[in-house]
């Protein structure tokens, strides 16, 4: 049963005919992690933002449906839309330092999800915050709860944001390049943690990344985007065994692999880019927004 269903979603700059997302359709089942991959500017993050209702002001949804647990979000009154997102969705952002308020201690920043969304009393929320930090393997939760963000390492801050994302038991999480700012050994720990938490809480997840290595470790299915268009959508096993689209194959060849340096870091050939551009233009021909 799919938890999130996006159908023919198109997004554009307000007042401009050019689309940033082009008829994007995808589904994420409960308990499934779906990867969104592509180059910078392909619209990966834009999809997550559209679902969470946090698109920049200048960007508008031109057409399409976003169904979350059966309800079409775009048809809901704004207040109900916000309530549902707040109650059932969460975000794990890319940069843990800018996502945390530098002038507040960690404790209230986790607790406010429990007090504001679930209506818990402060003492109960405080106790749960400590449990959550323990759940994301932070040693000495009491000390960390009293710390300020700058006193903690990057990996530790990302753990805190994961704890806070899972705090109100959301059904759906957008993880927007959550490990791009971290070094490889910390990245591995964080990815394993996200996998563990996601499985334990059975959360549906959109996982935005440009790293196909990361996708192969955390996702069960993926969509490959180019210029806001899904060029290939499939399950992980099929994708890595036999990528169907020429652009997907080129992305795989561009991905660094220390085990196979000769098939690594090959720039996407211009012919492939021309072909995928032509495909995008052809899709625009039939579209009237």
């Amino acid at each position, binding site marked *: 049963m799919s938890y999130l269903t996006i159908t023919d979603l198109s997004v554009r700059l307000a007042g401009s005919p050019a689309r940033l997302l082009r008829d994007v359709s995808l589904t994420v089942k409960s308990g499934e992690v779906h990867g969104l991959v592509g180059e910078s*500017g392909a619209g990966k993050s834009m999809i997550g933002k559209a679902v969470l209702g946090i698109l920049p002001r200048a960007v508008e949804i031109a057409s399409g449906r976003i169904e979350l647990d059966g309800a079409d979000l775009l048809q809901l009154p704004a207040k109900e839309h916000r309530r549902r997102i707040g109650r059932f969705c969460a975000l794990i952002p890319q940069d843990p330092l800018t996502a945390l308020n530098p002038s507040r201690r960690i404790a209230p920043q986790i607790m406010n999800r429990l007090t504001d969304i679930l209506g818990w009393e402060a003492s109960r929320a405080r106790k749960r915050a400590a449990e959550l930090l323990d759940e994301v393997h932070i040693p000495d939760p009491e000390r960390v709860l009293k710390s300020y963000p700058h006193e903690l390492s990057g990996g530790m801050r990302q753990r805190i944001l994961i704890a806070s994302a899972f705090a109100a038991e959301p059904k759906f999480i957008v993880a927007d390049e959550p490990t791009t700012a971290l070094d490889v050994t910390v990245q591995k720990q964080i990815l394993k943690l996200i996998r563990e938490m996601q499985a334990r809480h059975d959360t549906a997840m959109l996982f935005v990344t440009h790293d196909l*290595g990361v996708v192969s470790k955390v996702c069960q299915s993926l969509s490959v985007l180019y210029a806001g268009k899904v060029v290939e959508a499939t399950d992980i096993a099929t994708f890595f065994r036999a990528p169907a689209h020429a652009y997907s194959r080129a*992305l795989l060849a561009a991905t*660094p692999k*220390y085990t196979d340096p000769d098939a690594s870091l090959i720039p996407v050939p211009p012919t492939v880019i021309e072909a995928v551009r032509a495909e995008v233009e052809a899709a625009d021909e039939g579209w009237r927004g």
Partner: protein
Amino acid sequence: MSDLYAVRDLSLTLPDLTRKPLFGPAPHTEILKGLSFTIRKGAILGIVGGSGSGKSTLGRALVRLLEPTGGSVSFEGRDITHLTEGEIRPLRRRFQMIFQDPMSSLNPRHRVGQLIAAPLRLHGVADPRKAALDALDHVGLPRELAGRYPHELSGGQRQRVGIARAIALKPAFILADEIVSGLDVSSQAQVLVLLERLVADLGLTLAFISHDMSVVRRLCSRVLVLHRGEIVEDAPTAELFANPRAAYTRELLDAIPLPDPDQSWA
């Protein structure tokens, strides 16, 4: 072949401001703990390690943005460890640096042409305008981009501008500090192929700082692995990957997510 750099017992301590008391000086932390190695002319040396391992500090000591507290660094046979700013200035054009984040290392108010020409003017190069355009040719950017501002370029193009600025002075040595970690895979591949070609064409020596072993595998001829300010392994690339000796090197390798769902990743 001769050595471009010879580093002996290099150590560096910096005041740790996170532990500074309200009054009085901050305690010192040892960041580099006696490193010795050489860099051959024409080599591409990879410097890898986790965050906080001291790899950027080492790079900055090589190009003398930081002054070592102990040991010696010699460049082209000359001891540059404690040269004063005035003495080192003429040498600066011989070693250049490319930074991680081109958006914050390129002045947003200057056009690309000015950005590349400014260091050339500073070093008294004849006809800096033409040299800047030549540098754009070298990195495969169209000359029209000279009139653009950094924000008008893509991430990959901006990083090429950073490279153009470094090679415009015709240096002997370039330090590249995590220059592809902010780029997506396809621009990453383009920038690395470009760098490889420039090193061969211009006879450069390159030190490439990275935390990504896969990138290093493809690009570098020799690799230094740094851990907590010490060299834990120094070996030719093929040998290091075939037979990693230090536990920390294996840990770094094991942490890399390969694009292969069957890779066990315990």
